Every structure is written in C-alpha cells, then in structure tokens.
C-alpha cells in the first residue's frame, strides 16, 4: 500500500509487562489491546488517520510494534516477567517519537499531536525521575498515565504528565473498561484534532467508575 502522506494521529501504548502482571492481568491487557484495535477499526476517522505503536517495559524497555496504520497493525505477543523499568520506557518513548512522528514543515504535512497511554501496576524500579521530568518539559504530546491496582504509585506518573488516572484493580473487567476508555479517548481526539489551538487542553471523555482521575 502506498505510504500515506497525510496527517496521522500517532498513538503510543506504553505497557508494563513486569512479573506482577503475569497471569490474568497480562491476559486482560492482551484482550484489551485486541478490543481497542477492533473498536478503532470500526471508526471511519480513526481508520484513515490513526497509527498505533506498542512499547512494553519490564526489566528493560522495547518497542514491540513500530508506528503502524490500523489496517496493517499486528497485535504483539505480551509476556510478563521481570522488574519495572519505567525510566527506560520513558526514554525509549521520547526516542521513538522523535524518530517516527512527522513535524510540520513547508514541504511536509505534520502529524497530529501524539497520544500516549501509559499503564503500570507497580513501583518503578529504575531511575525514573529525570526521564519523567524531561518528558513533561518537552511536551511531546498528550500523555495519559494509568496507575493500575493497589501497588501502583501515581507520584512517578505525575512527574511525567498532568493527566494521571487510577484503575481500581487488575481484574479483567477493569482492564476491559480501561481499554474501552482509551479507545473512546482516541476517537474523541481524532474527531477534534482539526484546529486545536496549540496549548488547548485535551478533551477526554468521562472515564468509567473504575477509573478515577488523580488531581
């Protein structure tokens, strides 16, 4: 298929695949990504402009899916083990966005501002502070961070972004709702991308009861 030269909506999923996610939680995340994909594929606007990428992190961070258009996107295999290198994930996120997201120029149509959904279930085990602060300052896009379950800490996430939500637990149903909300947020964003004033706050749909916004 010829490369789409128009404006894309880059979406990055940054997912915690540490040991504590093993079993039901990681399975629920797999299902969630699948559902997200299916949902987005049914939305005509998302279909034309949304591009998806997945970064996973545990003892290290890796981009398991480069930025790909919805129709060509292949779900990644997700396995859970290891620690929680949030700092590395944030550094990698910065790097891939630099590499993959197109900036507006006289000859190039820039992409829409990237949307990042980050989910973690525990405390970061590496040097996260500097990368988090740097990322927030850089304003690479709209980052929505989710602290899932009782062991997750919101403070590190708050360093990286203003928009932090808490997910009650890692039950399949809660994760399902989370991914549903991610999908709705994407659709809302792809619908309102036209002419957003530079620093206007992102317009997110109301979250379900399982998700609380952390002030």
């Amino acid at each position, binding site marked *: 298929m010829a490369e*789409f030269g*128009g*404006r*894309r909506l880059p979406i990055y999923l940054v997912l915690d695949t540490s040991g504590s996610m093993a079993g039901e939680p990681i399975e629920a995340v797999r299902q969630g990504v699948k559902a997200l994909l299916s949902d987005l*594929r*049914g*939305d*005509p*606007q998302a*279909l*034309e*402009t949304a591009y998806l990428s997945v970064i996973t992190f545990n003892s290290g961070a890796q981009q398991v899916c480069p930025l790909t258009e919805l*129709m060509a996107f292949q779900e990644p295999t997700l396995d859970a083990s290891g620690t929680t290198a949030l700092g590395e994930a944030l550094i990698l996120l910065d790097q891939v966005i630099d590499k993959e997201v197109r*900036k*507006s120029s*006289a*000859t190039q*149509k*820039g*992409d*829409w*501002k990237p949307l990042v959904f980050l989910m973690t279930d525990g405390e970061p085990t590496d040097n996260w502070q500097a990368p988090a602060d740097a990322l927030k300052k850089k304003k690479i896009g709209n980052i929505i961070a989710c602290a899932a379950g009782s062991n997750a800490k919101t403070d590190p996430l708050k360093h990286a972004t203003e928009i932090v939500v808490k997910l009650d637990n890692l039950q399949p149903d809660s994760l399902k709702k989370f991914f549903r909300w991610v999908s709705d947020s994407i659709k809302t964003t792809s*619908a*309102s*991308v*036209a*002419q*957003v*004033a*530079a620093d*206007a706050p992102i*317009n997110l749909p109301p979250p379900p009861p399982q998700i609380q916004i952390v002030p």
Partner: protein
Amino acid sequence: MADTFERRINAIRWRLGLPFNQRDGVEMESEWKLLQFNESELEMVSKQLSKLLTAAAYQALTGKIHLQSVVQDEETLRAIWAVMNNVVNEKQKQLLPKISGLIVNALKQQGGQVSSSKQPATRIPTPSSNISNRPPLHKPPSLPQTQPPPMADPPNSVQSPTKSSWKWLPIPDDPDKHSESDARLFDATEGYRLFGARVRGKKHKHEGTNCDDWFECDNAGRWTIVAVSDGAGSKKFSRVGAKTACQAAIKILKRELAEIVPPAVNVAEWNKAISSRDDSGLFLDPFLKAIAASLHSAMVSAYSAVRNAVEERCQQPNSELYFKILGRPIEIGDLSATLLLMVHRVIEIEGVKCDFLMACQIGDGMVGAVRQNGDVHLLGKADGGEFSGETEFLTSNGKLEPNYLNKKTFVSINQFQAMMVMTDGVADDYFPNNDELGRLWSDLLLNRIPDTKVSADTPNATLPPGLSDCDEINELVVENLSRPELKLRSTAKVADLIGLSVADAAKRFAEVSQLGTDELHQFVASDNNAATRLRVWLDTYTVRGSFDDRTLVVLHREDLP
C-alpha cells in the same frame, strides 16, 4: 514528405503499428534501419516519441491496433526501446518501462507471444463490466440544502476497501443553524468569472454538526473582493464567527476600495513599490499602503462584528439557549474562526493589462494564483505550529496588531489564469501549495467546472489520437465514496495514464483539459453553473484523511485554453 526528420518519425509510427504514410517505392523496413537522430533533434524526437509510445499503448489497449503486428517478439521490442533509449531525455526514460509494461501486458491479453518481460508489469485499468452498459445518467436532484435522509443507509457509506462507514447525519435544530452547503455565482470584471462553493465535510456529516466554513464575494467598481473563513472545529459556534467575519469584512472593503485608484506608472516603478516595505512590513508606496490599510480595517471590523455577535447572544432570552448548550455563558472564543481576504483589480502597465492582487490572512487556508504556464504564486503564509491543527484565529490575541497583519499581507502583479481562495479543507489536499495549486486548477478544468470560452475547433495536436474517446479514460476517476456513480477525473491519474509526471501534467492546462469530462454538467443538469458544479466536486472528491469542510472561491479569465 521530403523532410528526413518526418520520414524517420514515420518509420517509428510504422514500427509501432500506428497509422503511417506509405509512400510509393519506399520500403518501410529500410526506413526503419536508417533510423538515427542527431543532437539537435533530440528534444523534438523525445517529445514525439513519448506521444507515439503513449498512442501505441492506448491503441493497443483499446484493440484499435493488433499488437502482434507491432512486435512479434521481445527482441524486436527491445530493439525499439534501444532506439528510444538513445534519443529520449532523462525524464522520458523513467516513463518507458511503464509504457512498455502496458504494451507487454496488452500483448499477453491478446495472446501474443512475449517471453519474459524485463519490465515490471504495470497495472492496466481494466474496463469494468458495466462501463459500456452503464445506465444513462439520470438527473438526480441537485445537492440537498435541507435535511439529508437520516441514518438509514447513508449515501456516503459505500464499499471502501476497509469497510468503514461514514454516516451522514442531519444538522440539528440548534440556534444559528447553517445550511449544508452553498454555491454562488458572482458578477465580475469584464473578461472574468467569479464563483464559489462550500460543503460540509465528512467529519461534520458523521457527527451531525454544522458546516463551519463561510465565504462572501462582492464588487466595488473595478475591484473584486473575496472573503473566506473557517470556524474552529472545537468551538461550538465558530460558524457564526465565520459568517459574521466574512460579511463585515466585505462591507468595509467595498466601501474603502471604491475610492482607491491605481496609479499609472511603469513596470520599474511597480516593482519598486512592491518590494519597498519598512521593518514592520508596512508598504511605503501610498497606493499599496492604502489597499493594505483597507484590508487591515476589514480585519478589525470583522473582529468587532464577531464581538457584537457574541454580545447579541448574551442578551436575554437567547443567552439561556446558549448557556444550555455550552454549560456556561457564550464567549468570543466560541466564535473563533480564520479569515482570508483577497482583492483583485485589472490594472494597465505600459499598455498591458495585468492582474493586481493583494491578500491578507489570519489562520490557515490559502490564497493562490496560477499562470497559464502552470506557475503558482502564493499570497499567503499559513500560521502553524509544530503539530498539525495548531492555527491562529481572528479572535486570538494580537492578530490585529499592525506588526502582525503587515507580515500577513501579500501582493502580486502578473497575468494570471486563475486566482483562488480556499480554506484548509482544500489547501491541505493540494500540499505543498506552491507546487500543487496548479494541479488544483487542472483538476477543476478536467472536470469542466469553470465556464470556459473555448473555441470548438481548438486543434489538439499534442495528445495521442483517440485518447479522449477511448473507454479507459472513464476509469480515470478518483476514489469516490460519496457518489459512486459519479465519475470524476484527476490530473494525477491522467498523468499516470498518459505517461507524464504529475508535476508536468499539472502545468499543461490546455492539453489536459482536452481530456475533460461533462459528468458534473450532467449531474447538476437542473441547475447547471460553475458554482453548482464546484459544489458537487468539493462534496465528492476523496482523499484519505481529508474530512474537513471545504470552501473554494475562484476568479478566472474567461478565455481559457
């Protein structure tokens, strides 16, 4: 045919199976063997050859010539290409594989003997089964201005390969309800035509919201004035801002320009005037300064008008209506919109009539002019941030400062064929504008949108014979999800099919427009004019990722190629 150049071209025609001149006592085989071209002929020959090759490809595709009579085997085919390769220039060289691919494939289809083809097979547009028994074009009603049919099987949801379904929801009965679309003809200076159209984009149709674009035009003596505006997508009443701004701006310009008469000076003085600005961008020449001042007054007046529009809506009892919708009192930000203003006048410089254009814009969209040779002059520089969608508005801070407006004011004097003002919905589909606005004009010509004064017997020596008639050209459509029965044509596809680069094809208005189609004329038959044709075109052409409202105003010379 005494001229040896002609004789040699004749030999190539013979070899390709095209009609040729058989002279008594002349052995075509020997003519062919004598084939050689010198340096000075190369330019001419390469042009001839590309035409002949294209013609051959087409004739073969349409079965008008039997390819087996042209080349019996790959050896011969390669011999022809070898000759061609020696004489065509670099650009043409890129096209040869494509055309040869077409011929090879046509051969295969006809059961011809071709051993392995070295050239990659090129996609051939296969005539779809219903081309020849296509039902006669009925006259559907012209584009609905009122409620379109609600959700059930919206006309827009068609077999896109990805099975996405765009909905077409009606505009709600909220306050300030605007029409789906608009199409208007305007009076223009003698020898010119002026028309404009706007349509609700796919996104707004899908969400069931208003079209946020607006345009207005008027004349003041010999001046033509155009205003185009695009309301901010995220602002609920931006359409009110767009309409109010356009109407107010036009009023001011009409009043102020009527008094301003261009000076009778020569080329050198005009050049000096255009390039003399102080550090803030202010024109030093009094005439230019006056026009710019009117444009800026118009901007200021547009802003005031928008402010008044907000105040009106803050009065009882309206205010409650708006409060209910917004959850808070209405404010000027809710009417955010861009504004593009262009003024035109014919001026005479040393006895020659020229187009004088000045434009000023806040926000995105573009003002551009196209010359007969395909050159594009842009009269704008869109605001934009690092990411898409970061534009400025009439209602944003600081946009009315002279320092800002001066830098957003552009002038151009030349002889233009077409001058266009458009919102981002169109500008973005022809990006980068300085390269692509010629293609936009070419697309309008290809779909016979502007009213032209073409003389019926304009010779068409430059295109292969039979090209316009062959069925395959009806496949030159852009992917059309809105109205699958409506076949539009695009310069990009024509270029591909006749073996030119898109950039080249986009400059050859006279040639390419010979391949135009009357589809739009027939479609809007009950109300057929340039504006209604433009409206259907804007509403129909499809570009991936392009779902914004589309507005385009065109001012062009009557005497078009």
